[in-house]
């Protein structure tokens, strides 16, 4: 530790800390504009000057490291004058439009002008006006207000990885601008208004709508992806105005999906009242009437239950209780992307924290569009890349990452066994092996060179494997994961403390779900197949949209043609059109609840915003359902429910104590005995189908959001993509053609892109492409444009 004196008070900080950080850590107020703890240091605003004893000039504290015994003064007459002058310099060209500027009230420039500025400016010459530029659907620019701190430039370079904001010109003609007059490509663009210290970059969707001081803040957890970021939902009255990250939480940023989904909270797609279908139309009714219909549809019936992982742990447990009380034989599904339900050697969830992944010697991403799936984990990998650490990747598509991937291979999903086998042979040759290698290798005839990338990375001291949706949704996923498990064990990456086996889950609370529902879980596909085959009488869907999301829209349609649908949830989605009864359940902004993210981190939302309509917390809806169906109500209060949760998941005992909560880290489930070898491959069609998860299109909340739907239009690709060689081999030209699959023939438009692996049919607009989402293999024919 280095000890130094700040304003005559001795403090200790880690060697190499900047003076500014030392001041921040010890609550000495030093003003600054350009410094940001998550970005590189620019040292250009010159607001953070301090005096160091024995130095001839004041030092910029942000870029000056501390040294032993240094004597720092943060408040002197001379510094006061310096700060006053910096404020005067900054304000000479800054417009005096605070009354109409959204930043007003939470503006560093405004605050510092009051704290450090003079009462009047002396600038008497013409002021500068600066041309605005286009920065995408979420960011409003007013560049005349810019103070050139370059935080946005550094954000685009270092965090977003897009590098498309830069500095033009010099002297007082200097301006910040988009390098190309196009939308900022980043999925993190919504953070720009947050880091802009002034009103130059403002949130476009909430522009000219509200004032910072009108907002009340509700701490919550974003459930739009398994990363489960801490968020502040800001509302004016009952109306959600915006969502922002919480300073000091594990991730300083949030993605555009989690941020701009807020307009879905008050969209037309919300289910705010109970409704029943009469003469083909959904009509609002009272709770009693709706429940009467539910009873008539469910009483003594064979029922299938599908729900979304994004509910709180309380909601999930209530669903389980409802099932056990009313339908003890019911099949339950909660995952729209898993075809293989055999237990995985390592189940969904991360064994490492994202910080540990960032720090690992090697990271290998297997079959995941991480930037769309987990934008904040992608951002951490980017940070890793900046620090010179490698990131390797194997997958069906050269997904955009905005970083330099060190080792990259594109493969067909049917090559996964050959990739893993190749890696097994390589590590075995280097003396690392595990019982089970021989059987696994014997089951796989082929070898694929991409396995070298995997094997090379496994030789490192620590290696984080990020197993993504391409493997998780495979028909033979349990065997692939078993193979990866063997590899990790052979190379010593499976021990407690250095477990690198991370399976990216579909949604929140995967650790809880895979244990609470382990015994009754089926694939959503199986559920729909059972309904289609007449084995079920009704389907209850709780907050999930199998028609719009996932891999089973065709199967779901067929099932709903046969059996009635009872929908419970916050958003109607596509499936709402098929519902016989709709019951409103509170959204994640409106409920007290417990959430577990992919790392196993526990968060409890405690001050929800008020409900907009008649929606009730999911657990209450479930208990009421039990009651009206004549069952014995298992719990009647949140406390009782939480006691019931702890009975099932003892690790959660400390979840509701503020001091214990942060210490909890739920490990994902392991199935040591689950060992499977790949089955013999026989494919009816020559192309593997991989469908893309788009953060702007996947999920019923997102589709209910106008803002994100608009962004989706900017980020869309052709419906179907193949590698040019795939078409050339088949003697086809891009354009209209026929996709043949087990569903028959479908006419589609197919585009080409070199990023897709040869032999893969890439469904880039899942949902929009409708039936094709169900496919895992297909072939192309005919069609000339």
């Amino acid at each position, binding site marked *: 530790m280095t000890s130094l004196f700040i304003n005559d008070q001795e403090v200790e900080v880690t060697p190499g800390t900047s003076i500014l950080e030392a001041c921040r850590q010890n609550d000495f107020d030093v003003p600054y504009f350009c410094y940001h703890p998550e970005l590189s240091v620019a040292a250009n605003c010159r607001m953070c000057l301090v005096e160091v004893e024995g130095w001839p000039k004041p030092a910029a504290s942000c870029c000056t490291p501390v040294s032993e015994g240094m004597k720092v003064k943060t408040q002197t007459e001379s510094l006061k*004058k310096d700060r006053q002058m910096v404020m005067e310099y*900054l304000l000479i060209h800054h417009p005096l439009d605070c009354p109409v500027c959204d930043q007003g009230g939470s503006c560093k420039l405004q605050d510092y002008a009051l704290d450090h500025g003079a009462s009047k400016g002396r600038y008497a010459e013409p002021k500068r006006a600066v041309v605005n530029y286009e920065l995408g659907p979420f960011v409003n620019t007013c560049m005349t207000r810019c*103070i050139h701190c370059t935080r946005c430039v550094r954000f685009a370079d270092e965090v977003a990885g897009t590098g498309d904001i830069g*500095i033009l010109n010099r002297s007082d003609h200097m301006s910040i601008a988009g390098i190309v007059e196009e939308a900022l490509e980043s999925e993190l663009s919504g953070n720009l208004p947050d880091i802009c210290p002034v009103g130059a970059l403002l949130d476009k969707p909430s522009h000219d709508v509200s004032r910072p001081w009108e907002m009340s803040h509700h701490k919550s957890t974003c459930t739009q992806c398994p990363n489960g970021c801490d968020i502040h939902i800001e509302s004016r009255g009952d109306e959600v105005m915006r969502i922002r990250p919480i300073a000091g939480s594990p991730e300083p940023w949030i993605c555009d999906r989690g941020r701009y989904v807020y307009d879905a909270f008050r969209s037309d797609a919300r289910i705010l009242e109970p409704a029943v279908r009469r003469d083909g139309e959904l009509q609002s009714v009272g709770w009693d009437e709706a429940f009467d219909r539910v009873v008539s549809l469910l009483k003594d019936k064979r029922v299938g239950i599908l729900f979304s992982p994004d509910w709180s742990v309380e909601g999930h447990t209530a669903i389980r209780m409802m099932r056990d009380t009313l339908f003890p034989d019911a099949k339950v599904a909660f995952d729209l992307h898993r075809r293989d339900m055999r237990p995985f050697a390592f189940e969904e969830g991360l064994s490492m924290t994202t910080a540990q992944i960032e720090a690992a010697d090697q990271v290998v991403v297997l079959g995941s569009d991480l930037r769309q799936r987990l934008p904040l984990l992608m951002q951490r990998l980017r940070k890793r890349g900046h620090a010179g650490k490698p990131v390797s990747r194997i997958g069906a598509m050269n997904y955009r990452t905005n970083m330099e991937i060190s080792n990259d291979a594109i493969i067909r999903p049917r090559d996964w066994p050959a990739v893993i086998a190749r890696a097994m042979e390589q590590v075995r040759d280097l003396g690392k092996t595990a019982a089970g290698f021989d059987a696994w290798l014997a089951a796989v005839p082929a070898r694929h060179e991409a396995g070298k990338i995997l094997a090379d990375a496994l030789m490192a001291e620590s290696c984080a494997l990020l197993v993504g949706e391409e493997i998780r949704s495979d028909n033979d996923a349990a065997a692939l994961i078993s193979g990866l498990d063997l590899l990790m064990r052979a190379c010593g990456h499976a021990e407690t403390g250095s477990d690198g086996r991370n399976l990216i889950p579909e949604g929140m609370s995967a650790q809880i779900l895979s244990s609470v529902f382990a015994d009754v879980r089926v694939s959503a596909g199986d559920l729909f197949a059972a309904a289609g085959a007449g084995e079920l009488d009704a389907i209850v869907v709780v907050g999930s949209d199998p028609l719009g999301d996932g891999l089973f829209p065709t199967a779901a349609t067929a099932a709903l043609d046969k059996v009635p649908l009872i929908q419970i949830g916050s958003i109607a989605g596509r499936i709402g059109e098929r519902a016989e009864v709709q019951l409103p359940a509170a959204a994640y902004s409106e409920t007290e609840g417990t959430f577990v993210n992919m790392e196993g981190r526990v968060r409890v939302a405690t001050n929800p915003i008020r409900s907009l309509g008649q929606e009730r917390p999911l657990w209450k809806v479930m208990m009421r359902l039990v009651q009206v169906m004549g069952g014995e109500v298992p719990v009647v209060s949140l406390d009782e429910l939480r006691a019931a949760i702890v009975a099932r998941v003892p690790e959660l005992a400390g979840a509701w104590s503020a001091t214990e909560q942060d210490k909890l880290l739920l490990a994902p489930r392991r199935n040591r005995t689950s060992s499977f070898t790949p089955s013999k491959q026989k494919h009816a069609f020559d192309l593997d189908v991989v469908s893309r998860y788009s953060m702007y299109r996947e999920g019923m909340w997102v589709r209910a959001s106008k803002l994100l739907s608009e962004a989706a239009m900017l980020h869309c690709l052709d419906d179907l993509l193949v590698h040019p060689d795939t078409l050339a081999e088949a003697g086809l030209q891009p354009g209209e053609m026929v996709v043949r699959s087990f569903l028959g023939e479908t006419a589609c438009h197919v585009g080409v892109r070199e990023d897709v692996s040869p032999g893969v049919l890439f469904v880039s607009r899942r949902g929009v492409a409708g039936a094709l989402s169900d496919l895992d293999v297909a072939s192309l024919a005919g069609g000339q444009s």
Partner: protein
Amino acid sequence: MIPSDPKQVKQICFDRIDIPDVNTLAVARKHGAYAFLPTVLKEFTAAKIVDEMKLSGLRGRGGAGFPTGLKWSFVPRNTGKPTYLLCNADEGEPGTFKDRDIMRFDPHLLIEGMIMAGFALNVRDAYIYVRGEFLHEANVMNEAIREAYAANLLGENILGSGYSMHLTVHRGAGAYICGEETALIESLEGKPGRPRFKPPFPAVEGFYRCPTVVNNVETLATVPAILEHGGAWHAAIGVPNNTGCKIFSVSGHVNKPGNYEVPMGTSLKTLIEEYCGGLQHGSVPKVVIPGGSSTPWLTAEHYEAPLTYDGMIKAGSMLGSGAIIVMDETADLIAVTRRLAHFYAHESCGQCTPCREGTGWLERIMIRVENGQACAEDIQVLSDAATHMAGRTICALADGAAAPILSMLKHFPDEVRARALGKAA
């Protein structure tokens, strides 16, 4: 030939400058170029060279006057990264035109100095960053480098010594700020020339974040003489702590403006009267800017001050790059200041708040002062804005921009006031 008796040394860098065609390798070699190089490469160790440089007392000729040997000794060894040697030939300081003469008349002197410096620092790749406007100088340098490569003075295994060094000329694009060493590095990396904050210093993290030494042309051109005659020899020239000779670029109201290399310690008066043919009008100058436009002004009071780093500091200014701008009583100092303010406002890189906003502001006020359209408060603003700019920014451009304003206000307050308020005669 440079005399081996230090007492007799009159010039070092300009020793061969008057010899016709000395820019060609054949003529340069006939007059001693590269003669001592094989000895250095074969018999000297890196440590010995650095020691000789330290002993010589040579201080950087680019402006800051930092001891060259000390600078070289800061370069970490065995970092696993390459070390780079960059020659700063971005001679942009208003009033300075000395490096240009070394490059266009005696390019082999610079090349030889760079090989020796490169050898001492274990450099494989060295660059000369030439000011964009110096097209002719860049051409001469390139031709000399071509000849040197052909003669195995550059490239692989120089003269069979086992040491290899490559030398490349890079032309800047005319930005004054690229003469600041970290801006030069940024520019050479292909980025806009904006100075970096320090630490880390270039010696540790410079060009491509590798250890880097940036030296001025004149500094590097002095190296061959020091190594040939020894550090002690060089230390005996000039005055203690200000050793060797220095080229002064004299411009302004003198009868014979030009470059003059003289031993350190020569007085300003001697230089102007004995070398430059005296002043055009009057017997003492009204203002002398001793080290390029960024240094504070001197007046008649310091006419006899010695031209040394220490002497100039004592007189309240700096030796800088040795660009002496002489103004006699006919000079319109307010117009000069306004013009300099325009220069700095134009050349500010725009990074730091005080410089970006301050330089433009100062220029706009100076325009009104010059035209007699200012008010009393403006003079206070000039003083405040300049004072709180200097020393508060990443690089020293703001200090340079403040110097003329503050000097003008210090030495000629009444004249400024009268002119500003429109009351001048």
